[in-house]
């Protein structure tokens, strides 16, 4: 079972035709076409139409198509959802999600739009962006608010302001929020995505932050520029040691199945389903990172 990878999610300003036409060539796992913060209030309609027409006309290959619509409390969200569902979006990302209610309201809009546009019910998934202390405290209830949810994300800029502090290189001000979000995501069985790193001239800073959040358990990170993608993917690439172990586990599990055994032992430890799944995921990540698994000795 190959779970969707979301190591990198590239933001694309929705009202910019030059950027909208081929962002997928840089190889992100997901594209987030943005109708929210990168679009001026007077241009919301134009951005919506541009992303709508682009999604319908352009082949973005295998890259997941996410749209960040405007917030639930705006006058724009109704048209945003109707248009993006009709355009064929894969995931709708709701900014400023505060509570489960917001998700339920969004689901209502999506359901109506799926019907109106002839898409199968349940096809369109949801991501929730948590941007305030209340949202972070409500992370779990948000994460389980709908089976359509595939992930929750931290959006740090507004969060840090509400916390009455500032962003720092070490990120201590985000530590609790990140921890809660990852835990909520894991408890709900969905993904956790970290916030953007805005200093494009500081590759070391980006790598440091990516390594930290990977270690914390995040599945990926939002990025704002294609140059950040190879750096983030590098951090999420498995080590040769991890690949080696995973190959052995997957091989052992295959052998067990062939012999009709429920479980098997490897190196004195029982290998049950979660361990096999994790190993399979490591190999998926390795392949996605362009590594040749066969070249790593088992």
């Amino acid at each position, binding site marked *: 079972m190959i779970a969707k990878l979301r190591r990198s999610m590239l933001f694309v300003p929705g009202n910019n035709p030059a950027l909208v036409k081929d962002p997928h060539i*840089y190889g992100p796992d997901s594209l987030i076409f943005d109708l929210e913060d990168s679009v001026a209030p007077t241009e919301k309609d134009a951005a919506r139409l541009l992303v709508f027409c682009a999604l319908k006309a352009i082949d973005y290959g295998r890259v997941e198509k996410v749209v960040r619509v405007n917030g639930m409390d705006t006058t724009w969200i109704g048209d945003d959802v109707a248009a993006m569902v009709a355009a064929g979006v894969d995931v709708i990302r709701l900014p400023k999600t505060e509570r489960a209610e917001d998700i339920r309201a969004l689901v209502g809009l999506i359901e109506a739009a799926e019907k109106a546009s002839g898409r199968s019910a349940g096809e369109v998934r949801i991501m929730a962006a948590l941007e305030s202390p209340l949202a972070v405290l409500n992370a779990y209830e948000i994460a389980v608010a709908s089976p359509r949810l595939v992930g929750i994300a931290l959006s740090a800029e507004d969060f840090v302001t509400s916390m009455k502090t500032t962003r720092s290189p070490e990120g201590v001000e985000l530590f609790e929020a990140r921890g809660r979000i990852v835990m909520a995501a894991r408890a709900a069985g969905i993904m956790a995505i970290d916030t953007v790193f805005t200093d494009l001239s500081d590759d070391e800073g980006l790598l440091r932050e990516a390594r930290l959040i990977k270690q914390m358990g995040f599945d990926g990170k939002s990025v704002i520029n*294609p140059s950040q993608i190879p750096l983030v993917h590098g951090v999420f690439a498995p080590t040769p040691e991890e690949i080696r172990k995973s190959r052995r586990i997957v091989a052992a599990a295959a052998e067990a199945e062939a012999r009709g055994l429920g479980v098997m032992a490897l190196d004195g430890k029982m290998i049950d389903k979660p361990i096999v799944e994790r190993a399979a995921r490591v190999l998926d990540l390795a392949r996605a990172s362009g590594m040749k698994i066969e070249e790593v000795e088992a």
Partner: protein
Amino acid sequence: MSRTTLGRDIPESAGDLGRLAPFMGAWARAEGVSAPRKLLSAGRPSKVLENVDEAVRRSGLESGMTVSFHHHFREGDYVVNLVMDAIARAGIRDLTLAPSSLSSIHAPLVEHCRSGVIRRICSSGLRGKLADGISHGLLDEPVLIHSHGGRARAFREGTLRPDVAFLGAPSCDPYGNARGWAGKSACGSLGYARVDARYARTVVVLTDGLEDYPALPASIGQELVDWVVPIDAVGDPKGIGVGATRISRDPRELLIARNTLAAIDAAGVLHDGFSFQTGTGGASLAVIRYLRELMIARGIKASFCLGGVTSQVAHMLEEGLVGAVLDVQSFDADTARSLASNRRHIEIDANTYADPGCPGAAVNLLDVVVLSALEVDTDFNVNVITGSDGVIRGASGGHSDTAAGSALSIVVAPLVRARTASVVDRVETIVTPGESVDILVTDRGTAVNPRRKDLKAALAAAGVELRDIQELRELARSITGDPDPVQYGDRVVGLVEYRDGTIIDAIREVR
């Protein structure tokens, strides 16, 4: 017997020597001594002239002749316009203008074309208003577009010979020793100018950096120069090239550069002692950044780098990653400084660079060259001279020379620029024939010339994803749609000369 002025008797003739001329005084016969250049009369000769107008007068330039310049000052050149204005003032007309290249700063030449001062142009490149004008029929005679190597060949063969070469130099002494690596307008190598100095009948050096004698070592020696003219400025340093050339940060160009390096690596070119050249376009130049990283990681050194040189290469020379730099044109101040101070940074002239008839042409030793393109077609022919609207806007330069000479020739381009496809069915103008191009690298895929089955196998084996050039063409078409074809007139306004002197394509007037 005849008598010399010193009272000695000498025979009137002697065997194979024929008639003998008796000595008539130390300087009596100076004007008559055969020499490729007019020898000056008695006394310590002064080559220094007051101003450009005097230089035009003393050069012996007449209507109908050929006049040449170099383009080492690029977009910052003042010399061509300054001299052509003086020539126009002198009432000289019907000239063949043969600069090594022209840029958009030379727009004032349009007026000289209209008024008949210029009848014909031979140049590697044309840009801006002049190029636009020529594409719309400004001149009656077609311009001749030649490569850098082709120009050197033509000068050597004599098929193109300047009567007068007006050469700007940032540093020159009163006897004519000129070089490009010193002075406030330092431009580095004078590689193209050296060919003019060697083959022109009369050589005039214009300088804004008159030095004491001797300004040696020199690029152009005192033995080749007839006149020296001090002027205020040969060019604008900002246009000549300040500081260091920046490597692109454009994600698309970096993507192309990474794809290019993967192809180079897969082709097996990167061994200790390899040689390379890149163009200066965004993606080509960015290849150097990734190449350098890989060379450091693998402990590989290049034997030499050729070009068209930028600060990145000068820096690699300093670092010891490159054994020597052969420099025919320096693109920025850092490179000029390196040329001035580093023994392994060597100026070469255009003959040595790329003349197809030169037994020591450096391009023949290249292992890999990375070149840009305006258009490439499904036969891998390359256009670097006209836009897809048919208007002249580029230069042949060293493109066909290096593509032919290099063991591996890679052309890089984004598949689509805004709505203009770079991969087309048929290029508007062929400058480099497809048989010289091995690989095309774009941001949407890499294609190997079917002639190179060996390369295709090597890249595939290394896991480089390959596309047919037809696939890339169709992808480009699916993005841009099919434009209306360019509306050409019947008149030929340009001839593209291949490096060997044959004509590879004709450029028609655009309606």
